[in-house]
């Protein structure tokens, strides 16, 4: 398709009237209240519900909530998440833990902050937080590992504490839910 260029009228060809009307707009804004933010000295405070970078959380007892179910890894559209499951060794460092990720990486260069990981997580272990400006000096630095994600994520108040409740119930029934590994 060919679109023919419209010929300018002689008034338009003068240019100066157009420049003058442009300056008029500039001048009008010159005396109005400023709306530009002096980023990065000034920071934007994000509204609640904002979807920033996804981080892992611990519960109020300091336990990693993620159980390495890998649903977030499965659902993540750009495949930003990569989880290493723990393998068969029985974990004995905390009470009633059956499974926890050995490593949990999110490639923040890939993440599109869609929030699907938070939505799919059955354990409320991953949340999109308020960080919107992540930067680093290398690509490697932008792959956040488990320790970093947990440190950034902080504590999430868990109202249910499923594992604790189960442990209490089981102890009352004299069944210890997580046995010591037999040699």
């Amino acid at each position, binding site marked *: 398709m060919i679109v023919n260029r419209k010929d300018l009228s002689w008034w338009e060809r003068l240019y100066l009237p157009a420049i003058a009307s442009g300056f008029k707009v500039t001048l009008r804004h010159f005396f109005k209240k400023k709306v530009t933010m002096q980023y990065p000295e000034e920071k934007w405070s994000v509204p609640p519900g904002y979807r920033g970078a996804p981080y892992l959380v611990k519960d109020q007892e300091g336990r990693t909530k993620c159980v390495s*179910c890998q649903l977030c890894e499965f659902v993540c559209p750009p495949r930003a998440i990569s989880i290493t499951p723990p393998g*068969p060794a029985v974990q004995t460092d905390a009470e009633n833990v059956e*499974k926890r990720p050995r490593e949990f990486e999110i490639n923040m260069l890939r993440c599109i902050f869609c929030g699907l990981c938070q939505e799919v997580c059955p354990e409320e272990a991953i949340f999109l937080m308020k960080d919107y400006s992540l930067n680093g000096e290398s690509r490697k630095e932008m792959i956040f590992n488990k320790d970093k994600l947990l440190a950034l994520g902080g504590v999430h108040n868990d109202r249910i504490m499923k594992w604790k409740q189960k442990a209490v*119930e089981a102890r009352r029934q004299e069944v210890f839910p997580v046995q010591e*590994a037999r040699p």
Partner: protein
Amino acid sequence: MSTHAPTPIKPDSAAPPPVEKIKIKVDGRDLEVPKTMPDWQGKPQPTTMLQACQLAGIEIPHYCYHPKLPIAGNCRMCLVEFGTPMLGPDRKPILNEDGTPRIAKSVLPYEPGTARGAIGCATAISPGMEIYPNSPATKQMREAVLESLLINHPLDCPICDQAGECKLQEYSVEHGQAASRFVETKVHKPKQVDLGPRIMLDDERCILCSRCVRFTRDIAGDDALGFVNRGSYNTLASYPGRSFDNNYTLNTVDICPVGALTSKDFRFQMRVWFLREAKSLCASCGTGCNITVGSREEKIYRFEPRENDAVNSSWMCDAGRLNYKWIGREDRLVKLGGSRLKAATWTGAVKELAEALRASKPGTLAIIASARQTTEELYLIKKIATRLGAVTDSIPRVGEGDKLLVSPDKNPNSNGARLTGISGPALGSSLPGIADRIRSGAIRGLIVFGEDVTRHGVSVAMLQGLDLLVVSDVLPSKTVELAHYLLPGCAPAEKRGSFVNVKGRAQRFVKAVEARGDARPEFEWLTELTGALGVENPPRSVEGCFNHLAKEIPAFGGLSWASLGETGAAAAI
């Protein structure tokens, strides 16, 4: 119960005699089904409602029923509503006005308004019977059974290895209720119970279907598992003080419909929905059990048996199942090498190799192939040997067998080596002769495939004295160290091809994972080498090669790659 003798799995050789058919109605459709069907041992037994529905293409949900195990009928998941023709006092069917037989739906005797289902897995059909697998009453029964199964279930799905292939999950979605009405405290049972060297049990998840108990008692012949306690406290346990450690324990993990029995090897390694599946064969013995290889990102996570009634039924042994770790070993040979190889690419290497082979005098070469190679590779090796006037043989590998699956022949393709003419009827019979002639200097060149010949009568000094030593292998060995030309090869899971098992069944397998580095399926460079050596029209593809050799070797009786299908076909051995 006392320990049964293990039941050997035999394919039915003779065609079964024709069976009487009876007329029934499934879900409103008229159907003729055989009166009897083979049970788990292959003996004819009255056809059950579940089997009749399966023939009608309707799946009845079930847990304890397994076609390869005796029927227990304890889970009640397969309850269906049904009706039978009403009989008058003269034992003649009562007819409706339109001439059809009147059907009496089965109801509770003391409550005629309530439907009374029967378990589909153990109720035989009778002439004129009507089965209602989709009626509201059937649906209600399923819902009720699932509700009671979930009462004490931990709902561990996020940490349960079975999630994604769990029948409890699947049926709950399909037939269950969305919400639980159970507000009481759940009964807790032992978790992470160490049953044996390869099995970990989670008693809370067990739905007490007894499949594992029946498998180990009736198939494996090791009566190691049973139930203790009663009611809600009913718990699966192994015999006190005994370890559940026979060579077939991991099959119980496969047949367990839930995540109660888990494999220690696969436990918490990878979620099943990430695994890519490839139809392959176990290469650990001559039985050639059909397997499915589960891999993700070129890493193998598990082998599982694949059903083939002519070979392994639905089972495989633990040793074969766990024999995959070497495929991902760090020290795998991944670079072209050897003391004389100049080229860094396969094209160059094949060219150099062809020149070196052509320069050798006819009659001074020997080829020691491996009965772990595919039939197609062995066929090409034989072609090369004929061209170069080389003697060939392969190495026998004998171990312990058992009555169920394990064969004493530890090579997966001994019959392939025999049929292609690489070896005589007894594998390795020419080996001492080859060794003597290397010692005497009559043989100046040796090509070795996947074997460490220093452990089979050819010493390091003898190898050092050779003019030409070509080695194709996957792992380092003394022979590999001395190679003039080293060609890194592939594990069976990394290539395609076929094996002929000890009973003469030719079976094909496909590639599950990609080999690392330079390693390349032997077939690919062998076909290039045959071409470079001047053999006319070498087969270019594995399929083509099999079709070719099946025509040439009478034992294959005109089989083709396509006719092998997924379960193989018999060759005459």
